[in-house]
């Protein structure tokens, strides 16, 4: 009896396998629909995919103009782009020549305006974030910061004319134009600095206070070293705004045309007027007939390129500073 059993064993195994299928056949309807998609599930999946594709397309749409702009500018500007283009003055009533005077002018305006707005903005933000209590004064200042950031640049220009050119007697000069740009960038620098300071955990400050540190010791030793990357990024991002604006400088210190010594980085005096890339681009595109075809595009490329370069430097600096802070 035993022997036939053992002989049959493999077939019994086989049978068992078959019967497993067979017996579960009774419950097949249930188990085979287990975890399968229902009509609602299908609709959810379609919606999910549709929404994702829509958002992705929006993202592409955002990048597309940027690529097109830069590509188109480069294509049009290629014939004029060269080393001399950057380091020679415009010639023939700005119909030919290079960009030296406006390029250097923009650098002057940006540097002087940030030299003014960065310290004031950063220190004001430190006060607002680290010292000021929540009272009517700080609320008014915060309100002013938010609203000042929303003022159109042409309004800043009018303020600059009134305050710096006329009232302070600076005349139309690099200084007046830079101060106007500084007023324009100040609220954004304050806002971004406050944000960077706020990102430093409160627990660090508590630790310092409870060891008897004054607020300044806390700021100097702990808060600033940990916020500096964010602060610098915020400041440097204002370079692009200051470099790109036309309205605030055209009544306060930038001129259509001026020749300066080529290759001399100290060619401008801050009490004199200067040329600027943004205004130059506007002039040669709209006011001067028969400009050599590539020049406006070349001007735009230099403006966009130098701003991108500065921003890239800001990103590199931030990455470097971030590797040094960990908590």
């Amino acid at each position, binding site marked *: 009896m035993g022997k036939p059993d053992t002989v049959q064993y493999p077939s019994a195994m086989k049978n068992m396998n078959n019967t497993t299928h067979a017996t579960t056949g009774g419950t097949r309807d249930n188990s085979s629909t287990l975890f399968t998609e229902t009509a609602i599930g299908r609709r959810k999946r379609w919606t999910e995919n549709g929404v994702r594709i829509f958002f992705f397309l929006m993202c592409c749409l955002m990048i597309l103009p940027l690529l097109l702009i830069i590509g188109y500018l480069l294509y049009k500007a290629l014939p004029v782009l060269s080393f001399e283009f950057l380091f020679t003055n415009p010639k023939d009533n700005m119909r030919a020549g290079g960009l030296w005077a406006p390029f250097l002018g923009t650098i002057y305006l940006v540097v002087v305006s940030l030299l003014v707005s960065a310290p004031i903005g950063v220190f004001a933000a430190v006060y607002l974030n680290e010292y000021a209590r929540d009272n009517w004064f700080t609320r008014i200042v915060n309100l002013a910061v938010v609203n000042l950031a929303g003022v159109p640049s042409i309004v800043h220009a009018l303020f600059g004319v009134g305050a710096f050119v006329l009232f302070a007697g600076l005349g139309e000069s690099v200084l007046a134009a830079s101060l106007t740009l500084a007023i324009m960038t100040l609220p954004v620098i304050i806002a971004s600095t406050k944000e960077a300071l706020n990102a430093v955990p409160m627990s660090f400050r508590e*630790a*310092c*206070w*409870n*060891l*008897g540190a004054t607020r300044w010791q806390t700021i100097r030793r702990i808060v600033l070293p940990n916020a500096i990357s964010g602060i610098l990024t915020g400041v440097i991002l204002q370079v692009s705004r200051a470099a790109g604006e036309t309205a605030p400088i055209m009544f306060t210190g930038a001129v259509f045309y001026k020749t300066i010594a080529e290759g001399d980085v100290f060619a401008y005096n801050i009490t004199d007027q200067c040329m600027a890339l943004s205004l130059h681009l506007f002039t040669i595109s709209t006011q001067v007939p028969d400009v050599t075809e590539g020049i406006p595009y070349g001007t735009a490329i230099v403006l966009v390129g130098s701003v991108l370069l500065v921003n890239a430097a800001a990103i590199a600096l931030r990455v470097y500073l971030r590797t040094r802070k*960990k908590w």
Partner: protein
Amino acid sequence: MISERIANNKNSIEAENLSLWYGDFQALIDVSLKIPVGQITALIGPSGCGKTTLLRCFNRVNERYGNVTTTGEIKVLGKNIYDADVSLPELRKTVGMVFQRPNPLPISIYENILFGLRIHSPLRSLSRSDADAIVEEALRAVFLWDDLKDKLKARATSLQLEQQQKLCIARLLPLKPKIILMDEPCSALDAKGTLAVEELMSVLSGAYTFLIVTHNMAQARRVSDECIFMFLGELIEHRETQALFQTPENPKTADYVQMRYG
């Protein structure tokens, strides 16, 4: 025993009719207490009863948190800390605080230990050899020296939580505090870390007066000599720990310590 101690006037902290308001909200109501020298006193009570607020009164750090009004008197080591000649940095040197979540500063272990000294002494007044000795002494006191002596330059924030919390205690020691306030120092730690910190407290008590806020009643029973029960801003009962847990006098205390409430 408590009355005997009070007679001997061996108190680190004495508060008399202490009341405190955050804006219009009264967080402490007429609190009077005496904290014994060199012992561990636990503050227990349900959340929001004012334990942490009371703790923060003793180094006056409450005043950094905005709209606070305080009345009454607090004497630390016999000196009224609301006197006009009290310097807050000096007060906070003597009365250190350890927090719920370990908060080492984002600098090296070595500099964390020296941070307190550096902010209280002139620039570059600390010689390298003195600094080394102070760091070693402080880390030895909290049993971290053997683990950390080879990585003193590492970021303090990269340590395990237990080590971070011990470091936060070690960081107080170079300032030679008399009183160490602890605000739920173990609630972010696991069981092993909790035990380690508790052991550390019992070793250090005697040299320092500890005042510890805790939600863990087992911990209060384990570590403290005396225990204070607070409820809705009032001090309900203050007795020796065993007595408070075994024969609470006030029904509110009884409800809480026998876990009928809270």
